[in-house]
């Protein structure tokens, strides 16, 4: 305070030549402190384990945690991909599905999903009541899943297409609960993420994804990641970490042809996607169900389909 007082005095009085022509050292020193004190506090807080909230809003840190977490994820995924790559190299032959005469042909795109997880081979071959829900990509995938359901004796009870929806819509609304309550599915496919590939509020979306995973707990499910035509900022990782182990199918590894709008897969793309997903569900998923490739494609779609738009109906 003495420093400040002398500084103000020095600047507000024009009492002598020395004052007129020399800089206020105190003022420059104070300017330095104006940066050093707040930044030291911010760094100190960022490195500490404590979290401070003001009116319920948590003060953010200088991303040290996220940087460390990202590095950990990056190093884990690099390690995992290296492991996968070596396993893939040694086990390609095992993974080629041998189609029975009653089944269609498998797409060889699925080879890369081998050896990711090993939950045993408890394939549930009973008929399922399947619920497919998700964003607009679900609107293209439902016709392919319809073919698979008819081939394998499952009933596609509902395709719930929520255009432009994000994880927030699914997690924070009771729409999903109501649908599950009404249609009583025994297996759920959730396809979400296309509309949030560029989102960087990963922490918030991870919370929503965890809530969504909780909603689905008790029902066997597979969470299908979005078809990535462009890089994402971590939403796939957030979903993968939030879903139960072995329930997240990372579509981003697939090469899928684009549709005319350049944002969604083409018809051929949806076919490739569904074929690959089916192999993964049968062989690698935590909840394996029978999804043999259909002999006949483009069957008549007989299931219920609900089409909503998040721009008009947010759900919360």
């Amino acid at each position, binding site marked *: 305070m003495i420093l400040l007082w002398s500084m103000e005095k020095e600047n507000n009085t024009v009492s002598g030549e020395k004052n007129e022509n020399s800089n206020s050292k105190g003022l420059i020193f104070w300017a330095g402190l104006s940066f050093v004190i707040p930044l030291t506090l911010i760094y100190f807080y960022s490195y500490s384990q404590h979290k401070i909230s003001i009116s319920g809003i948590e003060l*953010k840190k200088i991303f040290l945690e996220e940087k460390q977490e990202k590095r950990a994820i990056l190093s884990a995924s690099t390690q995992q991909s290296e492991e996968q790559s070596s396993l893939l190299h040694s086990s390609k032959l095992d993974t080629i599905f041998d189609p029975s005469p009653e089944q269609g042909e498998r797409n060889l795109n699925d080879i890369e999903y081998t050896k990711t997880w090993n939950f045993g081979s408890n394939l549930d071959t009973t008929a399922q009541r399947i619920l497919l829900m998700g964003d607009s990509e679900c609107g293209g995938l439902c016709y392919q899943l319809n073919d698979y359901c008819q081939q394998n004796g499952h009933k596609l009870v509902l395709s719930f297409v929520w255009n432009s929806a994000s994880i927030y819509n699914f997690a924070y609304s009771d729409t999903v609960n109501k649908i599950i309550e009404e249609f009583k599915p025994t297996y759920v496919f959730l396809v979400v993420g296309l509309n949030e590939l560029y989102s960087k509020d990963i922490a918030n979306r991870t919370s929503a994804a965890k809530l969504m995973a909780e909603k689905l707990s008790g029902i066997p499910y597979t969470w299908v990641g979005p078809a990535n035509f462009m890089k994402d900022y971590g939403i796939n990782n957030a979903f993968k970490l939030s879903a139960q182990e072995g329930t997240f199918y990372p579509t981003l590894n697939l090469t899928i042809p684009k549709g005319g709008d350049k944002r969604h897969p083409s018809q051929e793309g949806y076919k490739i996607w569904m074929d690959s997903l089916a192999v993964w569900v049968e062989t690698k998923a935590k909840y394996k169900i029978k999804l043999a490739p259909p002999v006949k494609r483009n069957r008549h779609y007989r299931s219920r389909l609900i089409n909503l738009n998040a721009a008009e109906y947010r759900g919360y």
Partner: protein
Amino acid sequence: MFQDLFTYNTKEPWFFTEYSFLLVFGIFLLLYALVVNNKQWKKIYIILFSLFFYYKSSGPFIGLFALMILSDYIFAHFIYKKEGRAKKLLLFLSLLYSLSFLLYFKYSNFFISNFNSILGTEFELNNLFLPIGISFYTFQSISYLMDVYRKEIPPAKNFTDYVFYMTFFPHLVAGPIVRAKDFLPQIEKPQIIRLSLYKESLLRIIVGLLKKLFIADYLGKYVEIIHQGPDGFTGGENLLSMYAYSFQIYFDFSGYSDIAIGIALLLGYRLKENFDNPYGARNITSFWRKWHISLSLWLRDYIYIPLGGNRKGVFNTYLFLFITMLVGGLWHGADWRFVFWGMAHGIALILHKGWTHFFPKQSEKWYYKILGIIITFHFVGILWIFFRATSFESAFLSINQIFTATSWIDFQGFWMTRPEVMYLLAFSSIIVFTSQKWKQKIIDKIYLIPTFFWIILIAIALQIILQFKDDVVEPFIYFQF
């Protein structure tokens, strides 16, 4: 951490927006207070910090920069002493030498790829990394040599002064392009740092940080999404992306200039303003007097006027204007998109000059003013698409979407799905279209805040930025030029 602080990291070069820089800058100021009243020590202290700053931003290219400074200094002294043909020859050699670095690092691949495509050759492209700020300090070097040649200024009194002028870190990596004749006299007679100057400089720094990290970076995320594939988005989304980029580039660059001016002021040196409410311009000529002023003036003084300016007839005036803008476009980047951008601005300036020739009196009616602002803003905005797009094709796709696939429904949907972008666009519009008079009134109120509370103001601003900014800070757009 401390080891990282003193080494150059290609993935994390130093920007003014890095909190680590601001912390080190704060410490630098604490020590600066000790040497501020000793002219020689002050110069040396600032030079050392500037070199350290450039090393943290560009690493080994500091050697290249040092070489350019040394050669310019020597050339300038010879140029000043000589007369006649020897003088011209020396100027030519010195300019060629200064420009050679820029030509090699920035334009060699551009020439090779065009050469290959025209003649069908297969010369390999160089794997080059553009030294940060090279376009800016090369232009500064040219202006110094030219001014000495024209005898507008004498060469720097001593080597220290010239190094100080060239390396002064606030303007080093992204301008404003500082002229020796404006800056060298200040070295001997810097401004006295008083309370008003202290407040002005801190406010410039805070405003600059908020412009860059709070507005520009956020809008940049949306722009990036659209430009990944503009034909996959509606016309409305493309149109909003055009607005978003217009604001992004303004807040990004003017934010940088604000920080640079603020930092320089704290040290006692005043850099010239680089922006003057450019989107409030009523016509394209006025826009170029308000946008990146230091570059516009440089182009005028070292290209347009030496070519002949308006002294050689109407046709030549227009031709020189066109060439000047073409060079301006090429300065921004070695790509035909920038050449096209420069040419389009050149044509617009010619058309406007022609218009004022036939209609010299500008209407002062308010609706004409607004109409002029709207037309100018949209013209500039459409050309920004070429600046931002990844290719010509992508730019035309975006423009095509705007003109053929825009409907009111797009905006309703957009409002529902991306309200935060709409809020930010509205907020940005208010800032850029509000007159300077009103802004000054707000600034005057802020200056009334007592000195002690400025530290709290900075703390709040830094934490607000942290609350809203992304974990990935985009480099300043003008760092690439």
